[in-house]
């Protein structure tokens, strides 16, 4: 994997929201690479900047949010060694609009409201197809029906003319996935795609995503707060806390050999089916600080059992290499080599 060039490279991206009350640093220096055919999981509590990171990749951060620094690089389809700099593009321009849906597609957070209720799902999927493929309306409708079929929707010829509110939660999510893959993208960003649906349907949707990824050789950027889903889906995991990457590494290393105190605490707080003893589930002490007064230094230090006074509350730790492809932002590992790129 090391010699492979990444499909998408997010480099030290910073997204700030300038509000009257102050500046919210939603994403404050996030870097990761996504490779072809890989499922990359981004995990973190709500408000840690997962969704804003996703929006900054597509350049759809809503005002007053602004990308202050950093780069999002996407390899070109025909020349994988060359990269498009998405951050330098005009937010409303043609270039970035060709990327959206055509190269990177989104499965949004709320399947309930992701479709317009007064247009049929077919109308909205066909629109996505016609934006990225050079086809007429009739051909686009055919592609749309094929796409609905490929996400396992029964009676696609009939369902294409239904409205989103006529479909069940699971079917609606399938329709959204059909819309996302209709433009034949190389990267799919799934922003908590299973949060709003019940567990049985959730399992079906996860299986569908995995199958599609395998068949089409797509990459998936899977955003969730559910560690169980991450363990099941992802090959590589990025752990975020308060707008920063705490730790990232292959899924096995993250789950079996977590290095960062935050990752360790997070994994400790998952209830286990094997443990029979009735002990209280450990929680992470304290609560997430308010975004306006983010702590200085490492954002996790007020809740960290290993915090070193005079260090963790003053300086930001660099990213240290602690294993094969495993990096951690913590002063406990400062003897290790620094990850420079």
């Amino acid at each position, binding site marked *: 994997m090391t010699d492979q060039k990444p499909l998408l490279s997010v480099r030290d991206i910073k997204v700030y929201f300038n509000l009257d009350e102050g500046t919210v640093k939603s994403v404050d220096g996030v870097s990761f690479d996504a490779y072809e055919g890989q499922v990359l999981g981004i995990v973190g509590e709500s408000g840690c900047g997962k969704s804003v990171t996703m929006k900054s990749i597509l350049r759809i951060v809503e005002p007053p949010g602004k990308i202050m620094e950093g780069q999002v690089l996407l390899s070109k389809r025909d020349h994988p060694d060359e990269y498009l700099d998405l951050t330098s593009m005009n937010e409303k321009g043609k270039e970035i*609009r060709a990327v*959206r849906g055509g190269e990177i597609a*989104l499965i*949004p*957070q709320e399947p309930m409201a*992701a479709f317009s209720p*007064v247009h049929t799902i077919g109308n909205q999927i066909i629109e996505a197809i016609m*934006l990225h493929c050079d086809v007429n309306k009739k051909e686009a409708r055919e592609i749309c029906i094929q796409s609905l079929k490929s996400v396992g929707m029964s009676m696609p010829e009939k369902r294409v003319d239904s409205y989103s509110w006529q479909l069940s939660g699971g079917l609606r999510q399938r329709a959204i996935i059909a819309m996302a893959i209709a433009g034949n993208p190389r990267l799919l960003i799934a922003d908590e795609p299973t949060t709003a649906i019940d567990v049985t349907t959730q399992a079906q949707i996860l299986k569908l995503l995995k199958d599609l990824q395998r068949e089409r050789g797509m990459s998936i950027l899977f955003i969730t707060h559910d560690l169980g889903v991450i363990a099941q889906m992802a090959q590589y995991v990025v752990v975020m806390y308060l707008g920063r990457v705490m730790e990232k590494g292959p899924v096995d290393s993250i789950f079996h050999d977590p290095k960062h105190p935050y990752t360790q605490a997070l994994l400790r707080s998952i209830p286990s089916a094997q443990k029979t003893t009735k002990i209280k589930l450990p929680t992470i002490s304290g609560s997430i600080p308010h975004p306006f007064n983010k702590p200085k230094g490492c954002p996790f230090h007020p809740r960290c059992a290993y915090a070193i006074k005079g260090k963790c509350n003053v300086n930001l730790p660099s990213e240290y290499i602690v294993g094969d492809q495993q990096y951690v932002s913590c002063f406990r590992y400062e003897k290790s080599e620094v990850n420079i790129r």
Partner: protein
Amino acid sequence: MASYIAKRLLVIPLLLLVFSIVIFFLIQAPPGDFMTTYSAILAGSGSSMDNEQLNLMRVDYGLDKPMHIQYFRWMGKLLHGDMGLSLLYMLPNTKLIGDRIGLTVLLAFFSFILSWLIAIPAGIFSATHKNSIGDYFFTVINYIGVAIPNFFLALLLMWICYDLWGLNLVGLFSPKYEMAPWSWAKIGDLLSHIWLPSLILALGGSARLTRIMRANLLDELGKPYMITGRAKGMSEWALVMKYPVRLAINPLVSTIGNYIPQLFSGSLVVATVMNLQNIGPLLLQALSMQDMYLSGSILLVYCLLAIVGTILSDMLLVWVDPRIRME
């Protein structure tokens, strides 16, 4: 759908019956009757009529009977399509109203179209450029539009038009077409006059509509389907016009029903000020002279138009919103 419309249409006679009772007793509420007003006017002009004569006329017109008898006589005629006689003009009310109803509906229709043509683009601009100078500009214009009584606006605009361009925009026709039979030239003349009263009537309504449109659209612009649309690669303009604007107009359609009576009552004073030959001035005169059958008939016609307008707006809403259509 057909059964829904049929149901709505069947309720119309019942509604009209209720309205006719309310209207009739409201008109009778002021003290005196047509004869008292009539003799007062005669006295004012120097001549007079003695009580005996007045009472004879009262018996003639049935004004001496108790109120409910008068109502049933009126109703009985109405059921035969006869709206009775205007005491003031000594003409059948059906003819008086019939002569003017066309222009009344036409004026209301033009004002309605104009108010939407003004309100929707202004509302879209204000919402998409929230808190910009342009938004504040429209907001100020809107508040002025709501605050200025439209008859005053009518006087102001008539004066400006006359002062600047020498346009005499009183009435709906130039003097030479006033009595002429209908022709293309007369229609052209009408169109060259009707825009000003339409605009004046539209401004008050469009101010409110713009605010509603702005608020609806601001709601819609924050909806998750906007993120879906952007992530698809749609241009912002195409996205705004296709989804949120479409959805923001739906609630606006449901306001049409309330807007129609407003248009009629607004046109009453404006039409009187501008000397328009629609029903407005006729109603004002009938009310002040206590010409009860004429004013009652006009108000009943207004009610009918408002009911029909509400049904039309409900049908329009069913047509534009599939969520209602499929229930």
